[in-house]
């Protein structure tokens, strides 16, 4: 499947993957993340059970301290 991840096109050898799996593949191990799929916010509790499909637009925002 092909998805848009953080505004860039990426291809994966799966038909569908969970958010958790995507984070693992991309090595997004950061503790504080905000994740949106096609504009909808995905809460941390839903990462295992939410699946990404071909054509989805996925945003993974890394939240870092400082202000």
């Amino acid at each position, binding site marked *: 499947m092909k998805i848009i991840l953080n505004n860039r096109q990426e291809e994966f050898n799966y038909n569908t993957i969970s958010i958790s799996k995507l984070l693992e593949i991309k090595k997004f191990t950061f503790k504080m993340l*905000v994740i949106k799929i096609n504009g909808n916010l995905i809460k941390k509790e839903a990462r295992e059970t939410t699946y990404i499909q071909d054509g989805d637009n996925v945003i993974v*925002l890394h939240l*870092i*301290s*400082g202000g």
Partner: protein
Amino acid sequence: MIITDFDIIDKSNLTRQYYFYNQIGQKKVFALKDNIYLINPKINVFAFDIMLKPLDIINIFKHCDVIVEAFDKAEMKQMIIETALTKMPDKPLVTGLGIAGWGDNNSIKTRKIDNLYICGDEKTEVSENFPPLAPRVGIVANMQANTVLEILLNN
């Protein structure tokens, strides 16, 4: 203008936040209100001494045109972003992300995801080796302010 904070002024804040030596120990919101009035006494400033939780964000900022996030902790940034995205998706939120250290001007940028505006380098986290210093904090704060003007004047 509505400002909220729960913190008190520490000596270490003076390098980059708009307070003065004789205000150390005062509540930040009330000291900031005083300082804004010194610049322009005609501005309407409403100051709330509160540690924001999701419900407060909705209640306090529901009539504002734009929300500006200036938290220090990542957990709080996540909380306000998630609250705005789910409970007030039409409200523009301007957030600062990645302000630590010095130099590297060109790493600091702005991007927009729906109604979320992100200013900063999105990578430098505050730590012992990467302190928050006035120049980069100021650059990001001014980019946030500039973004607010853009949102308001384009409406």
